[in-house]
């Protein structure tokens, strides 16, 4: 068992890049872990008396749902979003803590933060302040609405932003109210967009030698993902309505119930050729050779109802029809395609090996891109990081004595285990699977496969 993940020793394309991550929750922490996958060295700076929401609480599934002890170290979402980082726990409310942070930032290429804007202004640590001693520094500030404009002072989280951003208007069942779909889409849009901006700033720095500041407001990513609606609005044509799973450019697309509990297959009939193939496949459920789309959908539903989602999808694909099982996580882990491509990365957590979502690509070259390690334990790298900025053992001891640096959270009760059965009764989860270990044993690549 080791902290490092398999393959972590091959450098990535961003080897040598040093990142200070002051951020929490989803978007900005994920950005920094994806930079770590690409080979950057990332130091997550955490406060002594407030846990990242993915270390404990509703957003933190702890290994084996165990509470108590050092439960803040074993949350799966934390390890997914903070893989490959080091952790330094530093009290930035004390001037001594801030001066340590300044020393660290003076050695860094990039700072990523998602504080309320007044925090860094109050500490005299805006980008404009920091470049006076480190002109090559790039900094990304992630906020709900960005640093300028009339709404810039508003509070935001992914959930509250989502409606305002636009896509919710265009998601929903036919004739029904708008719906939010997925967990926190704005956070992921922000993570990828942030990386695009950071890497652009790095390219630019190659030419100019100077860093710059990136103002990433999540709200403004909303229009980017609804171009069809923006165009329709300006063309005076009909706005895209909420219409369930019906797609543009298909004759018929929807999900169909299959054999089993919560078993569904998604099917999209794109053209007449595909329509003819489906007619052939489901002929036994049709009254004639030329069904309308409603009758075809009904017959297709009868046909899928006696098949598993994967069998139905395979059969449709073998006839050239777009289809896929509606996969749950278990299905993804056992999916031969994701296994072939090693989509999941596997990290050692407290003596067992667990999957986390990996990079969505296969990278071939003299560098490697992969999860470098599990996420850091709380304060796991305090000494290593402090020494790296030139602090002596005596100075570090003083920082600990003054609780500027701590090794366990201050005044925080360990996370409690969740009442999973109650969450099933409330409908948050469908069930608590009992065969996870068997599934993981089956899904995990053998050592000789890498």
């Amino acid at each position, binding site marked *: 068992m080791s902290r490092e993940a398999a393959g972590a020793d091959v450098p990535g394309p961003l080897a040598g890049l040093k990142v200070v991550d002051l951020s929490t929750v989803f978007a900005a922490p994920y950005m920094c872990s994806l930079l770590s996958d690409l080979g950057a060295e990332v130091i997550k700076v955490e406060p002594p008396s407030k846990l990242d929401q993915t270390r404990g609480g509703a957003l933190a599934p702890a290994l084996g749902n165990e509470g108590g002890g050092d439960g803040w170290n074993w949350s799966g979402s934390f390890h997914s979003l903070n893989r490959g980082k080091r952790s330094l726990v530093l009290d930035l409310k004390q001037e001594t803590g801030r001066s340590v942070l300044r020393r660290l930032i003076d050695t860094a290429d990039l700072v990523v933060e998602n504080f309320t804007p007044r925090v860094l202004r109050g500490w005299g640590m805006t980008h404009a302040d920091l470049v006076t001693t480190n002109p090559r520094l790039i900094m990304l500030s992630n906020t709900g609405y960005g640093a300028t404009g009339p709404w810039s002072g508003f509070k935001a989280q992914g959930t509250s932003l989502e409606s305002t951003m636009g896509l919710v208007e265009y998601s929903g069942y036919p004739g029904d109210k708008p719906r939010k779909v997925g967990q926190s889409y704005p956070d992921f849009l922000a993570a990828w967009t942030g990386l695009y901006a950071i890497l652009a700033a790095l390219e630019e720095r190659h030419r100019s030698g100077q860093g710059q500041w990136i103002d990433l407001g999540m709200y403004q990513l*909303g229009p980017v993902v609804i171009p*069809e609606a923006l165009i329709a609005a300006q063309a005076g044509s009909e706005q895209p309505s909420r219409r369930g799973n019906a797609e543009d450019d298909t004759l018929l697309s929807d999900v169909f119930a299959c054999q089993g509990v919560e078993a569904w297959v998604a099917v999209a009939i794109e053209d007449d050729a595909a329509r003819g193939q489906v007619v052939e496949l489901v002929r036994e459920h049709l009254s004639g050779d030329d069904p309308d789309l409603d009758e075809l959908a009904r017959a297709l539903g009868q046909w899928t109802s006696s098949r598993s989602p994967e069998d139905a999808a395979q059969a449709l694909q073998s006839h050239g029809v777009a289809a896929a099982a509606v996969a749950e996580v278990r299905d993804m882990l056992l999916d031969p395609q994701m296994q072939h491509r090693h989509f999941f990365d596997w990290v050692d957590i407290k003596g067992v090996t667990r999957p986390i979502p990996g990079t969505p690509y296969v990278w071939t070259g003299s560098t490697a891109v992969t999860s470098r390690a599990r996420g850091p334990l709380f304060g796991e790298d305090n000494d290593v990081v402090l020494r790296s900025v030139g602090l002596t053992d005596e100075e570090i001891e003083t920082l600990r004595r003054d609780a500027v640096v701590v090794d366990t959270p201050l005044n925080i009760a360990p996370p409690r285990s969740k009442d999973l059965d109650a969450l099933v009764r409330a409908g948050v989860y469908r069930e608590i699977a009992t065969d996870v270990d068997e599934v993981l044993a089956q899904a995990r690549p053998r050592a000789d496969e890498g």
Partner: protein
Amino acid sequence: MTGSAAPLDGVRVVELGVGLATPLAARMLGDLGADVIKVETLEGDRTRSVAPFYRAAEDDERSALFEYLNYNKRGVSLDPGADRGVLDELLSTAQVLLIGDDFAQLATWGLDVGELRAAHPDLVIETLTPYGITGPKAAWKATDLTMQAASGLLSFGGNAERYPLKRGLRQSTFEAGLTAAYVAEAALLGAREHGGTVIDISIVECIASELVLTIPEYAFTGAVSTRRPTVIDPLSGDPLPAGPGYVSAQITILTPISNLADFIGDQRLAEPQYATPEARATHAAEVAEIFREALADVQPRDFFEGASERGILAGFVQTADQLLECPHLNAREVFRTMPGTLNGRPWRMPAVTASLSRTGVTIRRAAPLLGEHTSELVPDVGSRTEAGAR
């Protein structure tokens, strides 16, 4: 922002893209100053025929969606059978090659990424296809719906009493396009020291990489996520009817429900039976009713701005029309004027995602006509085929 050289000035990108995601990724590199050459077959990218059309000039109508995904590019059209050598020459002048969104694009152009890599060891080669270009499902047909299904996202989208529901419009485009853009930039940075790479991106996996909570919930605790129950806490961010539209509000430890009760002027909301998310789920109908009464005559925007000014996490469901008129987005100059007219008027699309203090995004040129720059870029071919088709 002050004038500094564009980050990708001097970088040439060749795009063999059809559809949406690959063209978007290539355009985003163009927005950073790269010289993007879109190479199409003689039939052209199918998005050229997607309505509605904007008017570029008298008797010249072009797809608005194609324009949005393909500005800042030049265009060449080639016959994959006859012009393979021309394509190879073009690639020898490029630093990045993007291929997608269909797996069939490789066959169309007779390309093998292994051979390409051997022939162009310093080139960043990126493919962007539904399932990736290797593995048993590489050739599977796919749409936005089936990709959302395979990614795991669909399994917890929608209402528990109904059926799995996809995100609206074509979101796989953006999940994959944004990923492809940043990964190409990272590969370019790495290429200076370490040479070229082949990056085989799966659109399905781009969506799956969002499941940073759902995957560990299962793998760490066995919990299987599902569609949302009908009865949930109305104050957890879901749209609630208000006046002519919908608003949302989210109560957290930092934004107590008493603030919201004060704001909507109904102290019933502050009563103890509505204090926790669980309690509000139990009394969901009553909470929704209090809201409905209080907000019956309220404009959703007024609720949003008023609540937000009081530090409450709030939102309102906006349409495309409202976003285009949004004072905040306009103050941040998010939209840029596009070429020509749409429905007889100038039109705008979002052009600025993140704001860099010294690096701006510019729209330097409109999307190319099919083969518009063939003569300029590959004169031998250009004399054979002339520009013209939409």
